[in-house]
């Protein structure tokens, strides 16, 4: 965390990957860039290409179909990279634990650097956690 903050110093770009979420977390992530929360003022942006970013923002339990794309997106991010798991599902499969399509939580697939609990987490919670990474 400290290391990432020192590295980024006011500029953090992430690629959002929905690994199988119910879209509740997506609603909160979308509202982060609304005029009310405006995450961009801290230099934090979501970008389209994994090559352009510092890490991934993963939501939802990792479903069987998304495990491979998620891993490949992770590998496409240049070093050094961080993984942020957003929502209870991403941390421990949440309400979807044990479901037939679910392979596991995000930490079963890749190392997680920052976990943001909540179902769904509040936009302000996500933003304050991300600010720690961005160093703002």
């Amino acid at each position, binding site marked *: 965390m400290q290391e990432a903050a020192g*590295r*980024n*110093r*006011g500029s953090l770009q992430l690629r959002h990957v929905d690994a199988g979420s119910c879209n509740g977390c997506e609603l909160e992530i979308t509202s982060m860039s609304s005029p009310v929360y*405006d995450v*961009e*003022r801290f230099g934090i942006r979501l970008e389209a290409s994994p090559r352009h970013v510092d890490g991934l923002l993963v939501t939802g339990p990792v479903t069987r179909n998304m495990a491979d794309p998620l891993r490949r997106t992770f590998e496409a991010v*240049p*070093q050094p990279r961080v993984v942020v798991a957003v929502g209870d599902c991403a941390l421990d499969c949440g309400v979807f634990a044990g479901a037939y399509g679910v392979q596991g939580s995000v930490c079963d697939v890749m190392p997680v650097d920052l976990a943001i609990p909540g179902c769904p987490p509040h936009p302000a919670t996500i933003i304050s956690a991300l600010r720690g990474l961005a160093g703002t």
Partner: protein
Amino acid sequence: MTSAWPAPSVVAVSVLQVLGVVVGGPLLVGLMRKVRCRLEGRVGPPVHQPLLDLRKLARRERTRPDRASWIFSVVPVVLVATTLVIALVAPLLSTDPAFGWSADLFALIYLMLIGSVVLALGALDTGTAFGGMGASRAMTIGALSEPALLVAVLALSIPAHSSNVPTIVARSLAHPAWLATPQRLLSLVAFLIVIVAESGRLPVDNPSTHLELTMIHEAMILEYAGADLALIKLGESMRLIVLLALFADLFVPWGIATAPGVGHVVVGVVAIGAKVAALGVALAAFEVAVAKLRLFRVPELLAGAFVLAVLAVISALVVP
């Protein structure tokens, strides 16, 4: 050096022009983003955010797609280098820059186009679907905007009897009545449309889109990372500021330094800074108000620019 100015002034002007473009480009992009955010009711990132992004990107790993060749790696350098040449020779601060003889409008436009073409080549080189799609779209738009720009420039060079930019700027300053002639106004509008198209901004392209299918410019740079991406972003912002500064010089030349001396150069710096900032703010405000055009409607817009440019040439020939 072929400038008539004393050597120290010429060196100072050259250094200021190049530094101004390199640092001013990202700041201009930051300013436009800020204006956009404020108009949307948001606070927005600080104006120097693009500089923070560049600093961070410059230290990140550079990746290269498996199938890419050396072309992919030279693209960022060529893009920045061609723009640096324009920043050095164009009359941005003074009407008599170093190597001013080489600042021919046609030469500058083709230097700019080298940047666009290498970007498209780099995109094709990645071998990805989006790279090829972005390249073909960008070249389609480029092929339509280039003739409009050339004809608009022709209309400017007819009354000045020269296509050398410093000469055109100096002669327009000597004949302010030229600036309100029909040919000027017509080519002004054509020029503006082309600037919007060439710099990949709304309504032709949306620089902040996340949808690969609607991307034009962004699709071409999807594979760049780290320092390469930093150079590309820097190159783009430098191209934008150079285009706006050239526009300001050609259509509102007042304030540019016409004689050597600290006072003249300071006025020149303030004038060009204010003009470019005003143009950037206007462009950003315009972007908030319009929606992106459908790709198939873009040729109509550019055809309109071409017609205006042709009319400008005709009126330049008929109404001298």
